[in-house]
């Protein structure tokens, strides 16, 4: 089947999109629509007069009828993750949670040790966990073994747009976890990065800055929509074998002008 499966739900689009950093809420809306994404990430923050915009945001999001994926971005401890997750579940009426437990302020890298503890608690509490993790195979497998049907290794640090820094590691994870839904989360900067992720066999890509911070976010969203199709179709179609020596495409047989002496 050529649909994306996340905890039993099927989706036609293989792009998960973030809702942050757009020039305006209206551009966000247009970009999300242009991307064709059916799943969007969002978060929870303290109410305050300033983010009354929060209400406008919430209206728009509901109107787009997307599947929501709340994150625990900004959490630095198991306790913060678990409680923010519970608040999300109640407010967004979903047991999906993008587990994000930051282990380093500069790289915003997930903490491989603490996040496993958090995932364990959340899973036992009935959450459907989508963990944002590094490209460490043992960590990814452990999360899968614990019951994460989806695992989301990074391509490169959040918001850097450096693409896939270690394709070898990502490919390795794909080969070793054939039955897990794998999503490249974070680091995507260009459409070709997304296409490459699919060519490595990844099931989906989650991105935000690459679209939101493009000069023209709506057009870039369109670009990524096609990039996802290109990569997925290309993966399913089966690439030509890579060769070290050149191979003529045009046949040499029947070449004119060549007459061996008689």
């Amino acid at each position, binding site marked *: 089947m050529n649909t994306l499966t996340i905890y039993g739900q099927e989706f036609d689009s293989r792009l998960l999109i973030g*809702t*942050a950093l757009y020039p305006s809420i209206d551009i966000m809306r247009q970009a999300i629509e242009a991307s064709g994404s059916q799943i969007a990430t*969002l978060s929870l923050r303290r*109410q305050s007069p300033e983010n009354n915009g*929060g*209400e406008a945001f*919430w209206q728009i999001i509901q109107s787009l009828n997307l599947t929501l994926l709340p994150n625990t971005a900004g959490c630095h401890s198991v306790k913060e993750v678990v*409680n923010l997750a519970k608040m999300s579940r109640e407010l967004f009426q979903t047991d999906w949670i993008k587990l994000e437990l930051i282990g380093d302020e500069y790289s915003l890298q997930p903490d491989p040790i603490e996040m496993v503890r958090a995932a364990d608690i959340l899973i036992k509490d009935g959450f459907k966990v989508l963990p944002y993790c590094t490209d460490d195979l043992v960590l990814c497998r452990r999360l899968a073994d614990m019951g994460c049907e989806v695992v989301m290794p990074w391509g490169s640090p959040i918001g850097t747009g450096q693409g896939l820094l270690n394709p070898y590691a990502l490919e390795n994870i794909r080969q070793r976890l054939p039955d897990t839904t794998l999503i490249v989360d974070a680091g995507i900067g260009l459409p070709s990065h997304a296409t490459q992720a699919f060519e490595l066999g990844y099931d989906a890509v989650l991105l935000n800055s690459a679209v939101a911070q493009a000069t023209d976010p709506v057009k870039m969203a369109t670009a990524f929509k096609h990039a996802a199709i290109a990569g997925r179709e290309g993966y399913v179609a089966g690439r030509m074998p890579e060769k070290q020596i050149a191979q003529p495409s045009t046949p040499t047989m029947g070449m004119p002008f060549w007459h061996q002496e008689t």
Partner: protein
Amino acid sequence: MKIKINGELLEIDAETNTPSLTQVLELYGAKPPFAVAINGEFIAQSQYAETSVSPSDLLDVVSPIFGG
């Protein structure tokens, strides 16, 4: 009495010294949709009425916001 909500001190003149969370949220003027934690522990809506808040408590009242 004073309670800390979302990082700021809120002056509340409640009859009792331990008002219910329901009262506190009303006085705070929390706008739905929101979710609540006291001292970092999630409190389910169903618990608001029977949860009493004491001055030393730290409250968080959160709402949806964009995220990646």
